[in-house]
Structure formats: C-alpha cells, structure tokens
C-alpha cells in the first residue's frame, strides 16, 4: 500500500511503526538518551521511539521539543521517520536543524495515517517534494529490525 505524503523535512527512513495512542511532547515526554517515552501519563510510557517510524496524529508542543528531537537525532535515538496527520512546526524545526548541525536526517511528513498499526513496516521516501510517499508493508517478524537511512 503506497500513499502520497507532504514533506515537512526531507529524507528517507524505514522501520517498524509505533502508532501513538495520544500525542507526545518530545520535551519532557521522550528521553533523548534512550528514545523512551518518559511521560508517566502516556498510555505507551516506557516504549522506545528509537529507529521506529513514529506515527502521531498531531504534535503536542512544547516548543523545546525541537531541541529534544535534534538531540535525539544526534544521539541516534530518534525515530527513523515521523508521520503526522497534521503539520507540526516544532518537530519540523528540530529535524531541519539537526540536518544542518549534524548532517543526519529524520524525515517528517504529513499524510493519511488511517489503517497504520503498530508493528507494520513503513518506508518513508521523502527526498523530493513532488514524489514523496510512504509504503506500508506487512508486520515485521522482528520488531527490533529497524534502520536509519540518512
């Protein structure tokens, strides 16, 4: 299944989908040292976003989430890609700044997220704005089989 996406921050990434049941703030909600969700009130508290394709309907602030995402990209604990249903300037800025500072990409795209479930393999191809897409594949046998391509 292939879907067109809008590119907020360009790049390619693939991995196993982690579909968030509630949006999360990277500031205060994600530990950049480990990539784990540390927001105690989040239903997926303790899960790791590292190397996953993070699927989230909307952003949740805080404005310092840009810095936390950039730091997690630097440390290699960031998602392989971020797929949103609605644009989020905070996460976009974090990904763009990390590309400039560290030469590492975490593509951020906007597209339809209906039908994407945690565990499915997602490939985000967002190099060119006019040909950007994501591919949804079958569930991965090994959930840790996730890679950064940057």
């Amino acid at each position, binding site marked *: 299944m292939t879907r067109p996406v809008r590119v907020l921050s360009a790049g390619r990434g693939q991995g196993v989908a982690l579909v968030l049941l509630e949006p999360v703030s990277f500031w205060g909600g994600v530990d950049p040292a480990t990539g784990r969700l540390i*927001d105690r009130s989040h239903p997926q508290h303790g899960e790791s976003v590292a190397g996953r394709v993070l699927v989230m309907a909307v952003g949740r602030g805080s404005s310092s989430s840009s810095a936390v995402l950039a730091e997690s990209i630097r440390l290699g604990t960031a998602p392989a890609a971020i797929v949103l249903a609605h644009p989020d300037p905070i996460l976009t800025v974090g990904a763009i700044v990390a590309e400039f500072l560290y030469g590492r990409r975490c593509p951020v795209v906007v597209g339809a997220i209906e039908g994407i479930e945690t565990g499915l393999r997602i490939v985000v191809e967002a190099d060119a704005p006019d040909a950007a897409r994501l591919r949804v594949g079958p569930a991965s046998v090994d959930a840790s089989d996730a890679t950064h391509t940057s």
Partner: protein
Amino acid sequence: MTNSGKWAHYGPGNLGVQVAFGDLEDCVASAAEGRVVRVRP
C-alpha cells in the same frame, strides 16, 4: 511542590519525584517550611 500545571504533569517523569500542586502562597510557605504546606484547607 509547584504551581505549574506543566511541571505537575512532567515532573514525575523528568525528576522522578511525586508532585504536590498548589498556588503561589502554598509554594512559598512550603519552601519556607521545607515540607508541603497548604495555606488554605
């Protein structure tokens, strides 16, 4: 103790502490006493 709803939410995950939420007077009184104080019951 904090009068910030945001810190009351994120404090447990960020600091590993239990949070008491109060108004500014509660916060100042608690800081002075060194324990959680509620100015008004």
